């Protein structure tokens, strides 16, 4: 159970921290930190087994028919990421405590951060690709929330939307790719997929699948040309940037590359796409980073560049390159997180991030400056620091590739150039900010930050140093374990060491460092050159594309959805007509072999009345009240027909629904014209008659064909099992509360949602309230006729008794929660009619929303309750008790479920009708209610 608990604990942390609003900041931070610390301890406990080469797996069956399980898998790669996510997460949470100002809501940030952590943990330990995708999307959503944390700033909102759009679109591509992959392999299980390398490579869909999955990875990892969302995401609070853009969000993309490396890599198309994308991103990011005046902008582009480096390493056709990529993932996370945090301190203490203003901070914050300088040096790849080690490995690997054929020697040169730019922007980060003269009108007088704000940076910088000096001591185990996972067991001999002797990579490093310093000293010329380049504003282009897409789809939607209800119904009926008539034309005989029952007088009369009612409803539709009365005839005759043909449950339901509908229609009619104008042209009328006649003929034919054939239905099963399986003799009710209880639960939820929707839509709806009826008569003066009021009041207990009776007998005889609920609702509606809303409001202080919630909760918990007895969701329990004097009675958990149904129905119906009635409750007639 341990693996499941890792994301679960983090999710719990999200909920807990969202509730710490009333606590002090320290308490809130402490509580929030608790959960990831527990998760970290659990992971440490698991680590030795993983280092020993085990893969820890956990599977819970979810939807076995679709091959979707809740499955977790912890191998070396996952372990590495879990460590990174948790450790840097803990540091970021600690850091955010000091970063946020007192105006910012701390629980909100923590809740989002923990949610994001959950999503990331879920990605890295998923053993089912669909589940992996689910968590992938969750990172997109939670990062949207994090980036838009300062939602009052427009750039935060825009940045969040951009990130969501790009990564969300990539997520869709990824889903398509994963579905194809699952189809190729025949399983969504990651173990199976990783073991099916040959099947995947040989399959015709390999290229499409690969490109779709890479699209997902590249958008997430901000690879060129999808990189543009990342700089805009810098509008987030700095702790968020430190977390998202060092260890997590963007690393999810490279994680995906590493995860599917054993299954997808090894072909030419993989190497070409991945390495060229990585190379382009590496160069582009490194170049642009130098020219950013915003500290976070510089870090953003440097992040893009480093991600390009990692991607490029995955695209090089050597096993050592993959090892180097994993190593750089670790190193980049440590130095980039500390740099972001240092930037946050600078921003926090000076009030700006503009490097043209920030100068000479060394004097004001020497301690922070030292930390930042070490981290920046690591970013540049200076020896004795971890960044140097992985960069050396990178340089070494660029020498062992044949990407460009005979021109492959270009790659090391380009890599060295990118390295030089990295040194240059790192030098700018150090020199421009901490030295280079005096600060220029800073908003705040800079000073050292609070003592503990530096702790997370100290930890990370210490890591940079220790890994840089004694790499084997720290990273050997985890690096080996992760490499085993990525390379599928066979790990090449590698030696992470500070000193490899004088060789070509060392020379490349030396060139990069000296070249970078040269670039930095000559930056004036470079800036001039850069400014003369045509500037391409990614945001403007993005907005333009987005706007065009939205306009296009809007046009398409408007073309289909023009707001005419007649049109929708026409189209819908035509489709029904088409599909329903199709099988009829394929049949040779309409009638089947069964004999027809002879018609008797009763049935003939009932049918005649039904038809008269239906025709009259249509004929009088201009005069709406009369049409409504005719509709009541139809409802009455239908329920009598149900009674006649032995369906008392249906009859009861039909009756109650009928009356509630009539009342609802009358409530609405009040606000509508009393007469509908005759504006349809003759052609339209002809068309409508044609469609309705056609549909009537088709439906009647289907019914006829159906009843004249022997029907082999599922009802035999229900009849045989209702008593033994559900404990009731009323099969209809047992189906509702037991066999199909899950459907019923869904239905009452829908009912509740509909009621809430109506309540919300009607709130503050301005409506013209007519002061006279259609023939110009003013309304009668007497609002609540006294006789009606007093008799209605005395009918209420009687009606409640009836509904109680119908409810109780429901399990064995016609009745049940739904009908009883409607009867109760009608009884209360009568009080509303007789006494008015205000009278009820004085006497019945019940909040219908709470009633609906209570009803659904009761039904849900009855279903969940069966879990505690080790049974599947919604198993009915029933037992017979022999009580003296009363006799044998049955108690069934289905009865409690039915109470939930009852309460929801009462609450929803009353809420709908009462809020419609409330529209006019306090208003004098003839005025527009605002």
């Amino acid at each position: 159970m341990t693996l499941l608990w890792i994301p679960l604990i983090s999710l719990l942390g999200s909920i807990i921290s969202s509730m710490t609003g009333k606590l002090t900041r320290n308490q809130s931070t402490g509580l929030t930190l608790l959960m990831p610390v527990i998760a970290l301890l659990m992971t440490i406990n698991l680590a030795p087994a993983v280092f020993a080469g085990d893969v820890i797996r956990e599977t819970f069956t979810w939807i076995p028919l679709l091959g979707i399980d809740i499955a977790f898998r912890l191998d070396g790669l996952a372990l590495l990421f879990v460590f990174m996510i948790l450790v840097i997460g803990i540091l970021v949470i600690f850091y955010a405590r000091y970063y946020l100002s007192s105006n910012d809501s701390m629980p909100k940030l923590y809740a989002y951060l923990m949610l994001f952590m959950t999503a990331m943990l879920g990605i890295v330990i998923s053993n089912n690709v669909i589940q992996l995708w689910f968590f992938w999307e969750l990172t997109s959503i939670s990062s949207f929330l994090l980036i838009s944390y300062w939602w009052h700033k427009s750039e935060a909102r825009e940045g969040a939307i951009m990130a969501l759009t790009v990564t969300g679109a990539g997520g869709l591509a990824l889903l398509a790719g994963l579905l194809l992959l699952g189809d190729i392999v025949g399983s969504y299980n990651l173990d199976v997929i990783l073991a099916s390398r040959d099947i995947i490579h040989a399959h015709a869909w390999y290229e499409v699948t690969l490109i779709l999955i890479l699209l997902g990875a590249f958008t997430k990892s901000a690879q060129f040309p999808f990189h543009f969302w990342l700089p805009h995401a810098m509008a987030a609070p700095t702790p968020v940037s430190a977390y998202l853009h060092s260890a997590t969000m963007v690393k999810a993309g490279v994680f995906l590359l590493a995860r599917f490396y054993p299954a997808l890599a090894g072909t030419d198309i993989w190497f070409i796409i991945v390495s060229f994308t990585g190379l382009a991103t590496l160069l582009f990011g490194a170049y642009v980073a130098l020219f950013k005046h915003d500290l976070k902008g510089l870090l953003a582009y440097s992040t893009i560049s480093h991600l390009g480096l990692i991607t490029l390493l995955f695209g090089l056709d050597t096993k050592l390159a993959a090892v180097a990529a994993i190593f750089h993932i670790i190193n980049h996370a440590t130095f980039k997180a500390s740099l972001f945090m240092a930037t946050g301190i600078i921003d926090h203490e000076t009030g700006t991030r503009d490097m043209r203003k920030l100068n000479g901070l060394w004097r004001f914050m020497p301690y922070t400056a030292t930390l930042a300088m070490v981290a920046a040096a690591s970013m540049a790849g200076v020896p004795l620091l971890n960044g140097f080690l992985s960069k050396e490995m990178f340089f070494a690997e660029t020498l062992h590739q044949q990407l460009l054929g005979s021109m492959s020697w270009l790659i090391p040169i380009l890599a060295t150039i990118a390295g030089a730019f990295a040194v240059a922007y790192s030098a700018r980060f150090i020199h421009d900010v901490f030295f280079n003269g005096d600060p220029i009108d800073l908003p705040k007088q800079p000073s050292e930050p609070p003592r503990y704000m530096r702790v997370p940076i100290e930890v990370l910088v210490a890591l940079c140093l220790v890994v840089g000096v004694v790499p084997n001591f720290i990273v050997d185990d985890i690096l080996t374990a992760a490499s085993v996972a990525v390379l599928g067991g066979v790990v090449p001999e590698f030696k992470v060491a500070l000193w490899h002797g004088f060789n070509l990579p060392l020379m490349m490093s030396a060139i990069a460092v000296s070249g970078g310093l040269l670039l930095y000293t000559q930056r004036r010329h470079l800036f001039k050159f850069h400014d003369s380049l045509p500037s391409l504003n990614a945001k403007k282009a993005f907005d333009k594309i987005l706007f065009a897409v939205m306009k296009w789809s809007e046009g398409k939607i408007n073309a289909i959805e023009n707001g005419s209800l007649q049109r929708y119904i026409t189209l819908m009926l035509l489709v029904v007509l088409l599909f329903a008539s199709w099988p009829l034309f394929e049949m040779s005989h309409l009638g089947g072999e069964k004999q027809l029952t002879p018609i008797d007088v009763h049935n003939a009369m009932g049918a005649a009345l039904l038809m008269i009612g239906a025709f009259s409803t249509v004929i009088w539709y201009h005069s709406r009240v009369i049409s409504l009365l005719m509709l009541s005839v139809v409802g009455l005759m239908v329920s009598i027909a149900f009674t006649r043909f032995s369906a008392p449950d249906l009859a009861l339901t039909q009756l109650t629904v009928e009356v509630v509908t009539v009342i609802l229609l009358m409530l609405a009619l009040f606000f509508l014209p009393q007469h509908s104008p005759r504006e349809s042209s003759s052609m339209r009328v002809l068309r409508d008659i044609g469609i309705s006649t056609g549909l009537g003929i088709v439906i009647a034919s289907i019914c006829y064909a159906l009843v004249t054939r022997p029907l082999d239905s599922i009802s035999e099963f229900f009849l045989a099992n209702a008593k033994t399986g559900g404990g009731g003799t009323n099969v209809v009710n047992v189906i509702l509360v037991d066999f199909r209880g899950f459907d019923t639960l869904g239905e009452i939820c829908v009912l509740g949602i509909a009621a809430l929707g109506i309540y919300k839509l009607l709130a503050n709806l301005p409506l013209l309230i007519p002061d006279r009826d259609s023939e110009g008569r003013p309304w009668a003066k007497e609002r609540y006729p006294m006789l009606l009021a007093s008799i209605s009041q005395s009918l209420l207990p009687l009606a409640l008794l009836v509904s109680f009776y119908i409810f109780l007998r429901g399990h064995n005889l016609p009745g049940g929660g739904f009908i009883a609920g409607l009867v109760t609702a009608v009884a209360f509606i009568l009080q509303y009619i007789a006494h008015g809303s205000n009278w009820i409001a004085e006497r019945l202080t019940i909040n219908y929303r709470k009633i609906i919630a209570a009803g659904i909760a009761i039904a849900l918990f009855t279903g969940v309750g069966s879990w505690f007895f080790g049974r599947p969701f919604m198993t009915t329990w029933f037992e017979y008790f022999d009580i003296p004097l009363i006799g044998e009675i049955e108690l069934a958990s289905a009865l409690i479920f039915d109470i939930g149904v009852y309460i929801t129905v009462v609450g929803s119906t009353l809420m709908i009708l009462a809020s419609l009635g409330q529209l006019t409750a306090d208003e004098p007639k003839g005025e527009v209610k605002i």
Partner: protein
Amino acid sequence: MFEWIISILLLIGGCFILVGSIGLVKMPDFYMRLHGPTKATTLGMASLLTAAMVFFSTTQAGLSIKEILISLFLLLTAPISGYMMIKSAIHHKLDCIERTKGIDNIEDDV
């Protein structure tokens, strides 16, 4: 014995119900038409329900008194429905023939 009682009650009920509906069709104005259904039919229903009560009490185990509930409902509500309908008729100022009495007693409620 019981069959006789049931038959007679049924016939009485049927007659009243039919008479009420004939009144609904034949009477010349709304105020008169109202009499049939509200009075005759309700009485017919009471008789019919009594018949059903006797029938089920004799044919099935135990005394059947559920029909009283329906009778109670009908007897309680019939006057109120009639009252509400006549109110709306007066509100609509429906025409009446000369023989209809008591039209002067109606106060204009507008």
